[in-house]
């Protein structure tokens, strides 16, 4: 019970920090996946008076991923009211060319504006349809979501920092006396701090294991998976290797920093 109490407070503080780190990783991945979805579903239509080479268009701006020429057949079919085949061919030649551009990422309004300017430098392009109204609304929603996440991150950072400092004070109080007594008997600093570092590393590992278990469970929970599927987002909620390494490294680094701060701040009682 005594040993459990010794570990409990730091483990709880560390778990909450690790939990926040992993949540941010998931949110970040979700945002990236969502942006990729948006980019895949978003395209710009350009109309040119003459036929253009794909490369000619792609070279205009790095944002352009691919160019697809749209067939004029559908338009002509709709006009099909007794037009002869010969006239149809003639009409095809006189109609402007339509191109659909897909982009490498979901652009900001500024990027669209720049893209528009660059495309208009090609003299034959007469019209660009960028669906800017729909785009603006979606983009603003994305920016809002990002801002909310940033504010949330800031709040969690402040709260966890306070938690760590509170923990630091408790540890200073708890370990100062023992370290002072050991100093009075000539213990070198590494020996005085050994218990502290051992406790810090053990607590970091316990916190890492708890968080690891928690996210392995969350990642396999059907309800959570279903939520992501509903958004057509396919992400790795918890990467058993990379995320585990990140969590354990963060946990051990944090507790070692905590222990170091205590050792540095330690003053021998007189």
């Amino acid at each position: 019970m005594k040993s459990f109490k010794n570990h409990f407070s730091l483990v709880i503080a560390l778990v909450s920090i690790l939990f926040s780190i992993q949540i941010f990783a998931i949110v970040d991945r979700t945002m990236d996946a969502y942006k990729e979805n948006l980019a895949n579903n978003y395209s710009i239509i350009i109309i040119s008076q003459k036929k253009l080479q794909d490369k000619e268009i792609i070279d205009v701006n790095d944002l352009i991923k691919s160019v697809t020429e749209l067939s004029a057949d559908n338009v002509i079919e709709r006009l099909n009211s007794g037009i002869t085949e010969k006239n149809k061919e003639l009409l095809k030649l006189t109609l402007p060319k339509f191109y659909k551009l897909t982009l490498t990422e979901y652009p900001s309004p500024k990027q669209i504006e720049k893209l528009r300017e660059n495309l208009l430098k090609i003299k034959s392009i007469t019209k660009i349809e960028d669906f800017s109204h729909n785009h603006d609304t979606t983009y603003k929603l994305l920016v809002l979501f990002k801002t909310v996440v940033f504010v949330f991150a800031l709040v969690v950072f402040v709260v966890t920092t306070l938690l760590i400092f509170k923990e630091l004070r408790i540890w200073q109080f708890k370990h100062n006396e023992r370290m002072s007594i050991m100093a009075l008997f000539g213990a070198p600093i590494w020996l005085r701090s050994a218990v502290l570092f051992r406790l810090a590393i053990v607590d970091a590992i316990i916190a890492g294991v708890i968080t690891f278990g928690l996210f392995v469970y969350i990642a396999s929970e059907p309800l959570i998976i279903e939520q992501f599927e509903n958004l057509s987002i396919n992400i790795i909620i918890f990467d058993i290797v990379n995320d585990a390494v990140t969590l354990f490294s963060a946990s051990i680094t944090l507790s070692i920093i905590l222990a170091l701060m205590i050792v540095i701040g330690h003053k021998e009682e007189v």
Partner: protein
Amino acid sequence: MDKVIVAQDLSLSYSNNETIINKANFSIDSGSFIFITGASGSGKSTLLKSLYGSLKAKQGSLIVGGVELRGVTTSKLNFLRRHIGIVFQDYKLVKEWTIEKNIMLPLIINGYEKGVTQNQVDSLLKHVRLKHQAGKYPLELSGGEQQRVAMARALAHNPILILADEPTGNLDDYSSQLIWNLLEGANEQLNTTVIVVTHNIPRNLNVDYKHYNIEYGSIHEVL
């Protein structure tokens, strides 16, 4: 005879600059048994603190075990402290350690082997009549028992010098007698220098001792 402590024009004060000990000159022979007395607030404990390096001299020189304590480096101070046994008025036991581990502390610091450490601790626990309490924590013991643990810890590594601050201050006769016996034994059998700060010198002591008194910042030998 070798001198274990040499003080020359030693002045001690705390941060408020009030001089507690003023230009004291004294030396203590190796293997001697010393009592330091004085009224409350006269500077007995302050002098003791300076002897284990917790309080730096304001002026003058203080050499303990061949180490000049004015401007001493941390590593030299640690080295000196490994050869000193200290008994504090408030015991200063590590609360989260068993009494067995508390007694082991100086042996661990001095790098004794595990087997030697365990034998030494067992023997000391027997001497202080606490063998049956080895696994208990300090707060589970009475004041007298805690002071006996502190005494065992001070003797564990066979130090060259024992500094004891009011070691029997609030103890019953039984615990007091045990403590005096241990100090006498260390002095007689191991030639350990013993310096005891106290209000009352016990009458039934079996060793020759010197008595110093502190008054108005000066240290005088009482003949």
